[in-house]
């Protein structure tokens, strides 16, 4: 069955370090409103922090869009991180532990994958990257 995506979206523009904090706070608040337990809301907020930092680091600017989702009786939160940056040349390695082209830890994307239930990445060189992650409420 195709997941039904509800219309209500929240957008956070990411173009400065402070926006990372704003995005993860907004995400946590939304998660709690959707009925997630604080522990899950912390996982979601941590994932958002990584996604927002990646936007800033590799594309300088972009946005994060939150939307409530439903699949059958399950409810959850989708987080889409979108930028029009350079794109990711080697996606397979980008989601591997310890791989980084920025000289950092290389824990960001693999970490996001572990924190969330679903992870989807779409990228084109020179056009940008869209990462969609979902968390379902148990």
């Amino acid at each position: 069955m195709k997941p039904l995506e509800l219309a209500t979206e929240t957008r956070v523009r990411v173009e400065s370090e402070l926006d990372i904090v704003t995005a993860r706070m907004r995400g946590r608040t939304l998660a709690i409103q959707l009925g997630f337990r604080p522990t899950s809301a912390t996982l979601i907020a941590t994932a958002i922090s990584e996604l927002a930092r990646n936007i800033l680091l590799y594309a300088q600017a972009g946005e994060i869009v939150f939307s409530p989702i439903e699949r059958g009786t399950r409810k959850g939160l989708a987080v889409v991180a979108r930028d029009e940056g350079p794109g990711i040349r080697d996606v397979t390695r980008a989601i591997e532990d310890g791989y980084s082209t920025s000289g950092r830890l290389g824990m960001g994307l693999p970490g996001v994958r572990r924190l969330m239930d679903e992870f989807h990445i779409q990228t084109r060189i020179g056009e940008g990257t869209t990462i969609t992650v979902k968390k379902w409420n148990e």
Partner: protein
Amino acid sequence: MEVPILKQGPYLIAIIQSALADADIVHLRDALVEKVGRHRSLGVIIDVTALDVMDSFATGTLRDMAHMVRLRGAETVIVGIQPDVAFAMVHMGLKMEGVATALDLEEGLAYLDQRTRAVRHR
């Protein structure tokens, strides 16, 4: 938002009071590494009770800081990592290897007292 650093005898104590932007954490790291020398401190306590997210950047920067402080001859202990934050860190695979942690400020002070006893009674 800048984190105040208090001098308490031979120790420096930084109590983080709100969510921090990346630049604030980097600033805290640099300030502590510098102040360890200026005050000839033997130990540093970072209280992260107020942090509701510790992502790869925060964890990496705090770990770097602890190692830099050690290279300057002092000990660091991170106190107050919240249960949900610890859960998220483990889930994500973030480690604080080689960095001392303690439950709260009181335990952190006890840890430093024990670690620096020989130097303090010199």
